[in-house]
């Protein structure tokens, strides 16, 4: 391993200590500026990265930096400010900005910081072998990755690719007694491109992963190379689909963006409280087929969103959202919880530049009884197989409409051709009750979500 080009070896304990001190100084400035309650969230990041363009190395990059965000309440009125400058004068000005904003905001009884709660011990997210990787290692591994893609087939054109090592620390402190920190380190890589065969330019695709365990990197790269190359080569020779309404097989990435994403958006307690969720009044009711179980599982170390505390320092735990097709719980951050006088479910999200948001961390969907990809194709028999979706999903109504990407036409359970200009539409909330099968095997999609493939009936397919 070489030393990072920044000549700064990542030291998690030291960075967390610095962040905690800065957060506490910011809280102290906030008190002096007139805040009744204050919460500081700090992030330190250090990145070594290699970017590739047209299959060749474009740029080596090294960065590090700190951002700190401050949320204050003054007479139950909200103000927020953030900075990436850590000198005392900048922190003081940041506190004044937040307090000033709060002084003319609007009072809201739910503007109270969550109390300190007991956290699980961190399993340790920094593998020294990862954090010790320097720019030379990143460039070498990235070049190897790109070479593997390029040597697969001369028709493959790599538009962009990258390999990076990111080390980060984060800390949360508040006047409610929260004081916690942790660190993480991971290797990420991705490739974006297409296949070109004479005048035939195939549709683009991309694939990549993020891993914390260096021992998994080679296998993950090989798997990603296979997926990317199969997708872009398969996109050549695209022809028209057929117009029909009926079953469609969705690969995990497409299934997640069309069906799971709006469901999780509608499960936001704030969306429910404000009347813009289709799940209002549906707690404990059937919202999908019995085969569907969706869990937010931040204990799964293979998913990028793993952690022990959320943006507000509240505990993150394994949390079923939908079990056997039944909606089990809405998602709460501190604000949404205060509106209903209950505890947060640990779903505050976001970084240092904005007030805490609300969402999931590490979604994991259990596999079903549909078997392998080949068995799912056999079950579909004839129709459309969609690997990516490029379109619009209205989170409120559930209506979706867009283009099926890296799409294939299936006859007798076999891929017979690539497709172009194929649009699909429907309503996600209605069609979640028409899921015909979930594959038994699941995929880790871009390192962030684990999901099976799904056959969904009743989808409207329009051929160009």
């Amino acid at each position: 391993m070489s030393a990072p080009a920044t000549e700064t070896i990542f030291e998690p304990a030291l960075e967390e200590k610095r962040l905690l001190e800065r957060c506490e100084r910011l809280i102290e400035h906030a008190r002096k500026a007139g805040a009744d309650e204050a919460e500081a969230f700090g992030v330190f990041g250090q990145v070594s990265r290699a970017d590739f363009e047209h299959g060749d190395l474009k740029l080596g990059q090294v960065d590090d930096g700190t951002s700190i965000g401050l949320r204050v309440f003054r007479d139950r009125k909200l103000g927020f400010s953030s900075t990436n400058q850590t000198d005392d004068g900048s922190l003081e000005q940041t506190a004044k900005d937040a307090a000033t904003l709060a002084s003319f905001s609007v009072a809201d009884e739910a503007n109270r910081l969550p109390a300190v709660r007991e956290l699980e011990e961190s399993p340790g997210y920094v593998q020294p072998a990862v954090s010790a990787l320097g720019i030379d290692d990143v460039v070498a591994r990235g070049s190897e990755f790109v070479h593997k893609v390029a040597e697969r087939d001369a028709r493959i054109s790599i538009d962009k690719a990258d390999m990076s090592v990111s080390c980060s620390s984060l800390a949360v402190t508040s006047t409610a007694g929260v004081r916690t920190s942790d660190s993480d380190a991971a290797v990420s890589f991705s490739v974006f491109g297409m296949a070109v065969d004479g005048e035939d330019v195939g549709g683009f695709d991309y694939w990549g992963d993020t891993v914390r365990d260096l021992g998994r990197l080679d296998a993950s790269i090989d798997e990603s190379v296979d997926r990317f190359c199969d997708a872009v080569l398969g996109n050549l020779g695209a022809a028209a689909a057929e117009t029909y309404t009926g079953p469609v097989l969705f690969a995990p990435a497409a299934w997640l963006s069309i069906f799971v994403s709006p469901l999780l958006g509608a499960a936001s307690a704030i969306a429910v409280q404000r009347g813009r969720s289709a799940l209002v009044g549906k707690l404990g009711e059937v919202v999908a087929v019995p085969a569907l179980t969706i869990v937010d599982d931040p204990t799964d170390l293979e998913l990028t969103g793993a952690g022990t505390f959320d943006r507000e320092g509240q505990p993150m735990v394994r949390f079923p959202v939908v079990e056997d097709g039944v909606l089990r719980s809405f998602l709460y951050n501190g604000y949404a919880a205060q509106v209903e006088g209950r505890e947060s479910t640990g779903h505050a999200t976001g970084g240092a530049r904005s007030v805490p948001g609300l969402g999931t961390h590490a979604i994991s969907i259990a596999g079903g009884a549909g078997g392998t990809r080949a068995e799912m194709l056999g079950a579909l028999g004839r129709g459309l197989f969609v690997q990516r979706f490029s379109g619009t999903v209205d989170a409120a109504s559930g209506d979706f409409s867009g283009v099926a990407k890296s799409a294939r036409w299936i006859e007798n359970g076999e891929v017979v051709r690539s497709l172009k200009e194929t649009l699909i539409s429907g309503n996600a909330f209605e069609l979640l009750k028409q899921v015909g099968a979930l594959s038994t095997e699941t995929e880790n999609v871009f390192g962030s979500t684990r999901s099976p493939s799904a056959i969904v009936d009743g989808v409207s397919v329009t051929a160009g």
Partner: protein
Amino acid sequence: MNSDPTDLLQEVLSGIDEDFVELRFHKKRTRSLSVEKGRVDQAKISEHTGVGVRVLTGGSWGFASTDRVDAETIKRSVEGARRAARASAAQKRDKAAPLPATELARGRFEAPGTSELAGRPIEESLGMVLRLEEQARNSSSAIQSAGCSYTEVFEEKGIVTTDGAKAWTQLVRPEFRIMAVAQRDGEIQRGSEAVGVTGGWDCLFRNATAEALTDKAAKLAVDLLGAGYPDGGRKRVLLSPSLVGLLTHEAVGHTVEADFVMSGSVAAGKLGTRVASDLVTLCDSGASEYYDGAGGTLLVDDEGVATQNTTIIRNGVLENYLHDRASAAHFEVAPTGNARAWEYDDEPLIRMRNTYIAPGDATLEEMIADIEDGFLLDGPANGQADSNGEFMFGTREAYRIVNGKKGELMRGVNISGAAFDVLKTVDRVGADFVWDLGSGHCGKGQPAKVDAGGPWLSCEVIVGGRNG
């Protein structure tokens, strides 16, 4: 504001005489307010500042950044970028050629509106956001929820290079958004309006007042309740200026970004060939053509090149790609000023600015009268383009046109097609020009503030409606 850092950057570069070094100071100050259902969700000021350093040495590029704006720290970042470049050298297949000499910007460049908005009290803006959110919520008993937001992004940049750039730029980009959610018998529909410009307050609300935008969003949400779905299939449609903007950006603009061309996009090798109807002239400009305020306005790009108005398609013939300095050297043309970086720690990439189709001579009434069976489409949602020219973008409103008459409102749908095939079907181009995507951002690894627009346009696309 007004913290011109170019002398400091010049001082850092003073001892460098071998490598090419580019220093880019970038301060971004954001003031943001957001209200939903009477509750203040966001009242925010954020300020993030730093210097991005790019070095070309030994045929390889290196990049580093720092959030400390002092000479010693910037010098250390130059060394960091140099080491990153050297680490790359062993693995780089084709050595990067030195950048050819070109005319680079020097001096101060200030877009209008910056001082005006910096001096506007934020509490006045919050008052407006609260008032309009309430206006939307109270406009109909069917409205369940409403949200309103206002954001100002102030940007200062100082760009200094070892080959002569020394430019300081300043601009502000305000945005206003209003959203209403209507509900009836369990059905939920959403209406929204958004505007964004490079300029001041009056510029932001020049085409419509905030009150009018609010009424329009609320009315659309209510009107969409019970609206039907259009049938899918290949149809002749009239695209509104906002959708023409999406078409120019998604369907054409991305395919002519020179980095994508070099990877084999559908526009590769097509310079000088017919790719559109001769009614189509399509450009990308750093200036706000026709009238001030386009959201992607950029006076100097992030390599220190003064921006150009680049004609991409002239009367249907592909004439130019969009370039940064390196791609311009590769194609042996002048750079077009399209290198843009989102923040100080991002490297500049080839990005669009204000992309548009030039106006023609038809009125909207004439264009509707020409269509026997089709749709009038309005209201942009998201969009995306593919390497093969296949594009997709969302619309929020669709009106049936039958026998030259505009019919009932239907739900918006996504439309698709192959870019150059669709442009060849253009048979009418409207006379009235509008910039209408100023609240949008483009994503390409990093976001970029862009605008797009044009007149009403008649063409054939695939409509993703419902079947049966």
